């Protein structure tokens, strides 16, 4: 970890608006006095909470200077070995995909447009194998008599605490124009993470979202840097990679969505740059696949350190509603993926990981809607199987873009993916009555194939409904 010296801290302090506000306040406090001692200032600062504010500001600067290390090893050994297995499995899939593309080249008539290394169902199926393994090998004495798909011994937050955390969303009021304008100004002037998070938790007005995200990721004065970086990556795109082909197929799918077909080219460009971006490996918060080096170049992991998966385009799509500049879209996507979405593909015991989120959902549904949980089990369509798509892809494609961006706000606001747990529970509750009538998997599929419109606020409300 890199330490900042006092001079550097002062420099950073001076770049924040709050520092100058504090200074102004002190000046005002002593406007009529001629001689001012250090003690006087200290006393004054203590009396009107300026000291606290300064401490907060400095600790924030120090916190920022710390670089978050990429998580490579999990505290639970079992998950480390699982990750290696998962990686091996993906390499096998890669071989198959390779084989298929070769066959296709020879035989043009048989084009399989659905080529991908893995999708959310593969991921869930892999997670499901844990229960068996763990109970056999490690916890032979403990009896797991549960209907849950996933019941693994990892540290887990209580589901009640998650429910409590987001309950405030139910009490959201409609804001007056005046208040919205106030928030706008606040976003423009604010630089502190904590404050930006607070805004994101409550309400981000349309039109200001991009600025808030950029500020939060500290990109707000780096337009040219971002652009240069992007242009460089674009030049690299001229060298074709095998993965480009997979991304193109993936991008084709996003074009089915009315909201996003316009952006298909931009999304593809972003992704092609993404798999060539060397900085991702350092910035990503968790290592997704344990690297095994293969001899043949074609069979190696991309520079990012993980395989592109099915529907990766979905994560980019809603961000196209934020900016017309492609390098901004790319920068936001990269940051969102490295900070948050990577956890949705990580075999880990981290509280944000797909494993934890899935277990939270199972826990909440099985305790709060046991009837539904049991019914789904009986008809062979487990709870998690139902919502895994929505969970892994953040409801993108299920809700209109503004609602998706509200989810993104919440993710930033709490620096956590837990909002997805709430939404998944709400989603199940919303269709509960219909699901209870379903007799088999086809019925269930039919329910979701009907035209439906889910909204953020609505799902939150359903989540808290008993």
């Amino acid at each position, binding site marked *: 970890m890199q330490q900042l010296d006092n001079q550097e801290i002062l420099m950073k302090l001076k770049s924040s608006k709050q520092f100058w506000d504090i200074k102004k306040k002190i000046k005002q406090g002593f406007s009529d006095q001629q001689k001012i001692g250090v003690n006087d200032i200290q006393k004054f600062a203590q009396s009107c909470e300026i000291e606290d504010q300064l401490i907060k500001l400095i600790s924030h600067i120090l916190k920022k200077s710390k670089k978050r290390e990429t998580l490579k090893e999990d505290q639970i050994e079992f998950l480390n070995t699982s990750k290696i297995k998962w990686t091996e499995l993906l390499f096998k899939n890669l071989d198959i995909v390779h084989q298929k593309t070769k066959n296709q080249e020879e035989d043009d008539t048989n084009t399989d447009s659905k080529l991908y290394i893995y999708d959310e169902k593969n991921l869930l199926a892999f997670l499901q194998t844990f229960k068996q393994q763990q109970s056999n090998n490690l916890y032979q004495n403990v009896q797991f008599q549960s209907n849950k798909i996933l019941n693994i011994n990892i540290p887990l937050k209580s589901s009640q605490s998650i*429910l409590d955390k987001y*309950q405030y*969303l*139910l*009490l*959201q*009021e*409609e*804001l007056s124009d005046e208040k919205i304008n106030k928030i706008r100004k606040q976003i423009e002037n604010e630089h502190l993470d904590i404050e930006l998070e607070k805004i994101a938790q409550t*309400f981000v*007005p*349309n*039109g*200001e*979202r*991009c600025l808030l995200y950029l500020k939060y990721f500290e990109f707000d004065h780096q337009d040219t840097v971002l652009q240069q970086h992007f242009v460089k990556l*674009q030049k690299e795109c001229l060298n074709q990679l095998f993965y480009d082909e997979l991304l*193109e197929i993936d*991008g*084709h799918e996003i*074009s*089915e969505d*009315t*909201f996003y*077909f*316009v*952006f*298909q*080219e*931009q999304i*593809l*460009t972003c992704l092609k740059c993404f798999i060539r971006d060397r900085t991702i490996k350092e910035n990503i918060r968790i290592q997704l696949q344990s690297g095994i080096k293969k001899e043949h170049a074609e069979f190696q992991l991309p520079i990012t350190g993980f395989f592109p998966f099915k529907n990766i385009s979905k994560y980019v799509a809603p961000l*196209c*509603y*934020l*900016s*017309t*500049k*492609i390098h901004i879209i790319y920068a936001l996507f990269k940051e969102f993926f490295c900070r948050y979405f990577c956890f949705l593909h990580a075999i880990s015991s981290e509280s944000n990981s797909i494993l934890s989120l899935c277990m939270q959902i199972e826990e909440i549904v099985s305790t709060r809607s046991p009837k539904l949980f049991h019914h789904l089990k009986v008809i062979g369509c487990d709870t998690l199987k139902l919502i895994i798509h929505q969970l892994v892809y953040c409801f993108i494609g299920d809700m*209109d*873009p*503004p*609602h998706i*961006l*509200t989810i993104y706000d919440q993710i930033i606001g709490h620096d956590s993916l837990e909002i997805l747990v709430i939404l998944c529970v709400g989603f199940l509750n919303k269709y509960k009555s219909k699901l209870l009538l379903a007799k088999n998997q086809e019925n269930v599929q039919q329910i979701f194939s009907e*035209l*439906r*419109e889910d*909204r*953020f*606020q*609505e799902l*939150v*409300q359903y989540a*808290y*409904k*008993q």
Partner: protein
Amino acid sequence: MLIISISLQQNYSSNLKFKTSFRNCILEAFKRRLWKETEGDDWDIMWAEKEWIHEVLDHTHLQSNQKINHFRNHYELTRKDLMIKNFKRYKKNLEREGKQEEANNYNFFPLTFHLPSEYPIFVEEFKRQSTNSDTKTAWIMKPIGKSQGKGIFIFNKIQQISQWKNTLRYNQDNPQAEAYIVQKYIADPLLIGGKKFDMRIYLLCTSYQPLTLYLYRTGFARFTHHRYDSEDISNTYVHLTNVAIQKTSDNYDEKLGGKWNLQTLKLYLMTKYGQEKVAETFYNIQMLMIRSLQAVQKIIINDKHCFELYGFDILLDAQLKPWLLEVNASPSMTSNTPVDFELKCGLLDDVFTIIDLEKVLTGNEEQIGGFDLICKGNPIKLPINSTFTTYLGAFNNRQQQLKKIAKSTAIRLAQTYQESQTKAIEIGSKGQKEKEEKDKQMRSSSKGPQVMQNGGNGNNKPNNLTKQNTIIKRNTTNLPALGTVQNKSNIKRQPLQNAGQQQQQNQQSQSNSSKKNNPNEDSMLSANQKLQKLTQESKINQFQPYKQQSQYNEVMGMGVVSRNLQKNEE
């Protein structure tokens, strides 16, 4: 028993006849109304090609009930050069009258010259522009009287048109001389997904005296692949997407036609720019359209037989300022997708309702189907407390709205019918005749509610209801996803209802606040569910074809009215 011979009755004939040479959505829309096609001159409505108007209309005498889809000299607005000429003239007139402010509003068309007649002035302006700015100004050449982008090209060097100039076409004396207009190219169009787009918006004019305009809520944005040279593009961003055109991209065009409906566009703009800015833009678009027609109001020959459905092509620049590109007198009614097909059939169906061949409307309706009345003599201003500045791009609730109109119309007609009945009784002699009439009256009053049931109301007091319903208000109750304020309301309004209850709940039982069942909550939810169901229905219905004839009849209440009355007659 053919006693009911009210004058109204004649007009209720469902034997309306139409004539058209089109074989696309227009024919389908006519057929859906169960009107009959005719080849002869006994049509009630004719959807003609522009050429027919020029060739035939002047030599034909129209019956009082006949309606035709063009004004005689519509080209004053729809031919590129004349439109600009009229705008310029109107602007000058306004300035002369001292209405400088209004004149300044006529800034929605780019600097334009007519070629070859204004060639010298153009060259002067061209030189002036290129010396004033560092980057070369691009100009666009459009042949007059050609549509669908035929013959259009862009240039930024005067040499680039020298070749064109030297051909026969330029020579003014040459009978083959082809007239062009040259316009300053809008250099910074708004790009979405790196693509340029323009909007097609539909405006119906039923009369120029007083100027009566209806604006359709749904239109679409058409995304284009860039046709022009890379040289013309100063913006690298545009260039970038140009290179990246994939072979796959052709497929979407087939599937979705490369279009967004106006609602989706509005949603995008609102997400990016915020509500106020977008509301302002859409209001400016509406005003642009009204001003365009005001400019030619005195020039167009008004005719009660004529109506016209204009297709406005509007471009937004990067500052969201709307620019008028063109006005089409015969916007394409050919569709390439099912969604497009339903949009156009719905649009035409509403046009037919507004021109009111059945003569059942009061003329006071503020909204008919997806059309909103935006001008009647003067532009209509929405109430100050309204959340909308324009309904353009708002949720198109045409189905529900048509039901509402059908209902109120049915009630009103039933009332008129009853009144005439009572009159007949008063006038009629005593004795047997009276008895007969009484029977009749009873029968007719029993029909009244039936007609009303059709609108979902079985109330037996048509008189009271009629008063309430004569002026049909806009149906704004059901505006889910896309109203101006809606994003906010969707996300924020709902919890408000819930919030109070939740708070109550919390107070009631602090220990297990979220677990205890709240009796209020059920009712709240059912209301919510209903609302949602409604919205869902409306969404589904929005562009669904009428599956059954009965459904169609229900939607088009007038048809039902006429049938009911006919039954009565028999």
